[in-house]
């Protein structure tokens, strides 16, 4: 059946819908039985019982009807029978925008309550992304996305502002502890922790950075903050723009790799945690070669390991805990904050429902940036307000910056007289400051000869000078080095010699490094061989990570220096220190 003419934007929308669909989405689009079980799980519905257009199934149907009309059999043949309907005009797109951006915070509560496993939130996010791709979005979404694309963070914080803020925070810290070592390290190489934050902290809430810095300092942590790629938030999650999501996540990952950080620790931000830890690898199509954890887990570990001591008597107010939707419902991160909270406060009262069943703060999904929908957002917030009030707590703790803003708005609007805070603030407040803080110092480890003794390393490069350099450096450290000048020779030697590590140049004539790498991974005999990619063209890295095989164990950019080569080789071979096996 012929489809009516569409506007250019609508045409593009449908065209991109076809490309965007995956099996999960199609299942969710085709599987809804309109049973209505999801209806009462949505805070918009509960706050607007007389408006059925807030029902999650109805909202999802606004996307579903386009799918049915264009892609599903029944809808294409008998559209009226299944309410299939095309999207034709720019007005249709604008109407859809008001639903997917204005009537849903993508909190995923309805998805958890669907007997069929229909993931409404994923459908809603997909529709947002399709609208964004044709330029239809709330103004706030456009502005924030632009900042994140262009400036590198979603609040448009300029590099000098960021660095200057850290500088004066460092000065304050130094004064507080009367210790020149009590500063925020920037771009420190080989740190155990690279700490990434929400730009809101720089702009509106720098005390959270100071609090985190205090904790790291007292714990004696070897940490750093990056000068770039420091924004762990990601508006791509809210706008549905996977390209933006991937670019932002990649910016953070690449900085950690560049700094050779062991672990990326994320400050308390629900969507930042979800974007950077959970979705980033999906948007980019590859996993990351380092650990990513929430600062909540880091603080909890410090207490358990005795690296910091806390006194809960310093936090005597009655507190309750609000689970961020992204943390709890999309990342399963809800027990650790409670464990920490119980160590930090004297009177913790649970909020009901909680964990994965908690209600949204109502500011999620980018809602705080969409001022045109503020009245309906605040009206729906009555559910959250009732939930908060019922706890009888004076303070609500949350592990999400977005929720801090959302809850603050709810509390102000409904005059609840509560205070909102985060775990980092409570931890810093409860800290027992030792008389003498032990800070990490650069220890000169005595050089031990032959740290790579016993390791066989195959170096592959088509440039003889580089081959000679690599071989000389590695042999000096005791490694047995084999050399290959092209892809075919590299493959043959990998099979024959079974090296512990292959350093692989990407750009080689004939069989290039990418091909060799995939062959190695696909050959069960040598698939587990450790591979370090070496390239003069960092943009080619992506090609490697996009391959449908286990990613390489490390990579290095040319020109290579001796120190970075040895550090990377040691890391890959899991030598924890430079003078022996782990």
């Amino acid at each position, binding site marked *: 059946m012929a489809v009516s003419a569409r506007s250019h934007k609508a045409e593009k929308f449908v065209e991109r819908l076809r490309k965007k669909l995956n099996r999960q989405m199609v299942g969710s689009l085709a599987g809804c039985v309109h049973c209505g079980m999801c209806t009462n799980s949505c805070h918009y519905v509960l706050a607007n019982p007389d408006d059925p257009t807030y029902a999650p199934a109805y909202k999802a149907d606004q996307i579903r009807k386009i799918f049915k009309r264009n892609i599903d059999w029944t809808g294409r043949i008998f559209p009226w029978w299944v309410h299939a309907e095309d999207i034709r005009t720019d007005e249709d797109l604008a109407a859809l925008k008001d639903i997917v951006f204005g009537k849903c915070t993508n909190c995923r509560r309805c*998805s958890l309550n669907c007997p069929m496993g229909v993931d409404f939130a994923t459908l809603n996010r997909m529709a947002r992304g399709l609208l964004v791709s044709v330029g239809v979005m709330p103004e706030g979404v456009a502005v924030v996305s632009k900042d994140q694309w262009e400036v590198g963070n979603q609040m448009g914080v300029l590099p000098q502002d960021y660095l200057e803020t850290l500088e004066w925070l460092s000065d304050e810290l130094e004064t507080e502890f009367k210790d020149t070592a009590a500063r925020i390290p920037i771009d420190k190489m080989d740190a155990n922790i690279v700490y990434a934050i929400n730009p809101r902290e720089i702009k509106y809430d720098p005390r959270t950075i100071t609090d985190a810095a205090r904790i790291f300092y007292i714990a004696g942590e070897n940490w750093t903050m990056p000068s770039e790629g420091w924004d762990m938030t990601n508006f791509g999650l809210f706008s549905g723009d996977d390209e933006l999501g991937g670019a932002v996540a990649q910016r953070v990952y690449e900085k950690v790799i560049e700094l050779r950080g062991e672990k990326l620790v994320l400050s308390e931000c629900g969507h930042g945690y979800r974007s950077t830890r959970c979705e980033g690898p999906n948007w980019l199509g590859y996993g990351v070669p380092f650990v990513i954890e929430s600062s909540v887990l880091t603080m909890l570990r410090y207490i358990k390991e005795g690296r910091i001591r806390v006194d809960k008597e310093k936090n005597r107010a009655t507190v309750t805990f609000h689970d961020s939707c992204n943390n709890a419902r999309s990342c399963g991160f809800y027990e650790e904050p409670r464990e920490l909270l119980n160590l930090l406060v004297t009177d913790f009262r649970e909020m009901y429902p909680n964990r994965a069943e908690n209600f949204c703060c109502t500011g999620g999904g980018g809602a705080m940036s969409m001022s045109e929908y503020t009245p309906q957002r605040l009206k729906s917030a009555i559910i959250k307000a009732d939930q908060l009030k019922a706890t009888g707590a004076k303070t609500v703790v949350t592990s999400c910056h977005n929720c801090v803003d959302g809850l603050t708005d709810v509390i102000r609007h409904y005059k609840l007289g509560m205070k909102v805070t985060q775990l980092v603030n409570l931890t810093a407040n409860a800290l027992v400051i030792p008389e003498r803080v032990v800070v990490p110092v650069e220890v000169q480890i005595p050089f031990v000869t032959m740290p790579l003794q016993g390791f066989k390393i195959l170096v592959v490069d088509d440039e003889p000078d580089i081959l000679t350099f690599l071989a000389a450096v590695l042999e000096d450290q005791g490694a047995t080095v084999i050399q290959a000048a092209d892809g075919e020779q590299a493959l043959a030697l990998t099979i024959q010699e079974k090296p512990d590590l292959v350093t692989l140049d990407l750009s080689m004539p004939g069989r290039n490094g990418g091909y060799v790498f995939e062959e190695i991974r696909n050959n069960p005999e040598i698939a587990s061989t450790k591979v370090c990619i070496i390239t003069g063209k960092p943009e080619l890295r992506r090609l490697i990570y996009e391959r449908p095989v286990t990613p390489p164990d490390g990579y290095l950019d040319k020109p290579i220096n001796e120190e970075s080569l040895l550090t990377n080789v040691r890391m890959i071979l899991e030598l924890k220190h430079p003078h022996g096996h782990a």
Partner: protein
Amino acid sequence: MSETLRFVSDDLQLMALGFMALVYILRIRWLLKFKASGDRQARSENRSASSFKGVVYSWANVAMPWSMESTRHMSFFYIQFVVFHVAVAANIGMSFVIPYAPGLMKPVIVVRLLQILFAAACAIGCYRMYRRLSNPAMRLISTPDDFFSLALLTLWLFASLFAAPNRPDLGEGPLMVYFIMTAFFLVYVPFSKISHYLYYPFTRFYFGRTMGHRGIYPIKRVPQTKNAAVKG
């Protein structure tokens, strides 16, 4: 038994079943044409998290009304769901038993139990139709297919009440109606919402895999204590 009844209870059913199977195969092929996306993130920080556990939990979700707030709060609706679906499954089973193993339907108790089940399901069907028409949100989301599918199933369950005794000697009418409706049902199902059970394993599998990998499934719930009461 007349030749016509034999035809509608046997050949016609096989034809309808064959047609349904064919359309289902095409449906599944169509679904599988779409690429399944994976979850590349490192496993949840919750050590017990596992995709496998998530999938099992997700599939078993249907039998665990306590696992979802929606079924916990709407227990009457859940009971209706169970009775209705068990009755439909029993009814499908009966369409095989009558022509191929009629002996199983001989004991009166079996017939009576089935009739009670069908009658209950039929009443539930009527109630659900009322709910669809009277609840504004339900009315808004309901399509002609939703109404027709529910009406079809309810009428079919009603017809099965009279077919269950399997007494063609007392008149072939009830069995004729039952088997013709069954054949129509089988042909219509792949094009309707009734085919949701075809998608169920897929949607639940993928949702459970992600939720399990990320440590959300199995859902951890802490029962409410006296210090807080929340409406909603």
